[in-house]
């Protein structure tokens, strides 16, 4: 995709702002947005995420929308390299959180826009992929699947409904023996097992595809060590997947009755990063962990490119800070060799290290 121009209205510190992107090469852009801290670099990336994903990065609408305004608007002018057509995309969000999106001035469903353009990213908070708990990596994997599997969102929400239904019956039961003899619970667990099979199959498949990319990327660009994702389910499973899940749920009824929650299943499964055979959380330096998180996100991006028909831009926010010289060079090389469509942000001083002539600069200082 080529981003020609974006217009921001009432977003963070901007009342009204037009930003023209360098696009003379008529090809996928690799852009480095420069400016001092607080210049609004991250705002531009957040706005693109909101435009394509309808999602406000780590913030409530109240903080995204400029103080005193009731509604924020972002409008972008893009060129699709695949269909060779221009598109105008406009999205708005009100202080109450209601949002709308239009494509070429017609209001549409967000999915339609995502079929043409989409965004994937690395933000400083992504270090949590290494340091954080299983839930962060679960939502990373589930989020990734949703990029190219349009039914997965429903599968996950069905799963949550079923777990809540199961918990409700367990909470209502008067004693433990009652939960082992409950037709309603049998019925819920049967449907739950079916949904669980779906989730396990999709997660396992995506993780194996992701590992192929990740192991290669890590070896090729970072070090000769191995980094891979490991998935361990909390369910006791056998070859008869559905039956064994059903059995596993049945067996845990007693424990679950006492705690009032469902203790096994995809919502409790362990997803870890294994670095040289050990949990990556406890290995390596801060800089190395940041590179691991970046490698993970770039692998996800490559998988999306393989599986999705639209054009996807990779956004990397404040990547170079907190990395030493060698790690900076590694990170830049990793991005420029793997991300055909790329927008990065950096401060002026950090940018000296960027030597790739292919990367165009957009200095926020110049367009004030």
């Amino acid at each position: 995709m080529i981003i020609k121009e974006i217009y921001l209205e009432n977003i963070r510190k901007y009342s009204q702002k037009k930003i023209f992107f360098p696009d003379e090469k008529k090809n996928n852009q690799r852009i480095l947005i420069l400016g001092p801290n607080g210049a609004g670099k991250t705002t531009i990336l957040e706005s693109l995420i909101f435009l394509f994903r309808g999602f406000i990065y780590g913030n409530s609408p109240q903080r995204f929308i400029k103080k005193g305004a009731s509604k924020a608007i972002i409008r972008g002018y893009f060129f699709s390299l695949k269909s060779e057509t221009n598109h105008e995309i406009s999205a708005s969000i009100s202080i109450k959180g209601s949002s709308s999106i239009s494509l070429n001035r017609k209001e549409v469903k967000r999915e339609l826009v995502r079929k043409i353009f989409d965004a994937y990213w690395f933000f400083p908070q992504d270090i949590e992929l290494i340091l954080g708990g299983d839930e962060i990596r679960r939502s990373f994997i589930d989020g990734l699947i949703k990029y190219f599997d349009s039914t997965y969102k429903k599968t996950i929400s069905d799963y949550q409904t079923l777990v809540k239904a199961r918990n409700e019956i367990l909470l209502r039961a008067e004693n433990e023996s009652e939960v082992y003899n409950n037709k309603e619970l049998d019925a819920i667990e049967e449907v739950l097992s079916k949904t669980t099979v779906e989730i396990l199959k999709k997660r396992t498949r995506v993780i194996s595809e992701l590992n192929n990319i990740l192991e290669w990327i890590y070896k090729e660009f970072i070090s000769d060590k191995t980094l891979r994702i490991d998935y361990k389910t909390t369910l006791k499973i056998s070859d008869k997947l559905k039956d064994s899940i059903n059995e596993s749920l049945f067996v845990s009824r007693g424990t679950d009755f006492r705690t009032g929650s469902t203790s096994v299943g995809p919502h409790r499964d362990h997803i870890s990063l294994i670095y040289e055979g050990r949990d990556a959380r406890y290995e390596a330096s801060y800089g190395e962990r940041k590179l691991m998180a970046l490698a993970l996100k770039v692998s996800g991006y490559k998988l999306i490119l393989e599986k999705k028909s639209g054009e996807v831009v990779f956004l990397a926010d404040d990547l170079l800070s907190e990395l030493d010289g060698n790690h900076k060079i590694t990170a830049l090389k990793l991005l420029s060799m793997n991300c055909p469509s790329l927008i990065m942000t950096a401060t002026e001083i950090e940018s000296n290290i960027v030597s790739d002539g292919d990367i165009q600069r957009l200095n926020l200082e110049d367009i004030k």
Partner: protein
Amino acid sequence: MAKLPKAFEKLIEELQKLPGVGPKTAYRLAFFILKMEKEEAQSLSNSIIDLKDNVRYCQICFNLSDEEICQICSDENRNHKQICIVEQPQDAISIERSGEYRGTYHILGGAISPQEGVGPDQLRIRELLERVEKVVPEEVIIATNPNVKGEMTAAYLLRLLKGKVPRITQLATGVPFGGDLDFADEITIAKALQSRRTLDTK
């Protein structure tokens, strides 16, 4: 702000009990009714009472009916040994429109949803079991909606009816996944009925 007349406030309050009607809509509707001719307003109010007095549930299948027993249940040309279980009267109407089905219905009045406090006791499941024991149907078709609640209900009914009915089938593919039966078009329903799969009745 001056207080509204009592009658006006009361109507707003009543209207807000309707699904999808918030304070704003209730206010607008109340104003609209205020401007109506007296005869029109009378007719609106009469038809609400008429609905409550004269439309009732069929004693056999719990579909909406003018009489004690509905038209379908009293039709001798229909197959009374075949019962199609649906969630709501409108689901039976959708299946009727397809013109493929010649059996009878049983309306559950909803689907299992423990979070919303709907379990087997809140649905017409006891009545279904009594009916099955009395009629001894040759086939029961479970046509709950193809969503999670409908699936939980179907799984529950299957467990309950196993061994009591020789043939238990379920509306198979064709009905759009995740969609409600109400919105499925008639051809897809017809297809789904023709290709319904037999559930394990062992």
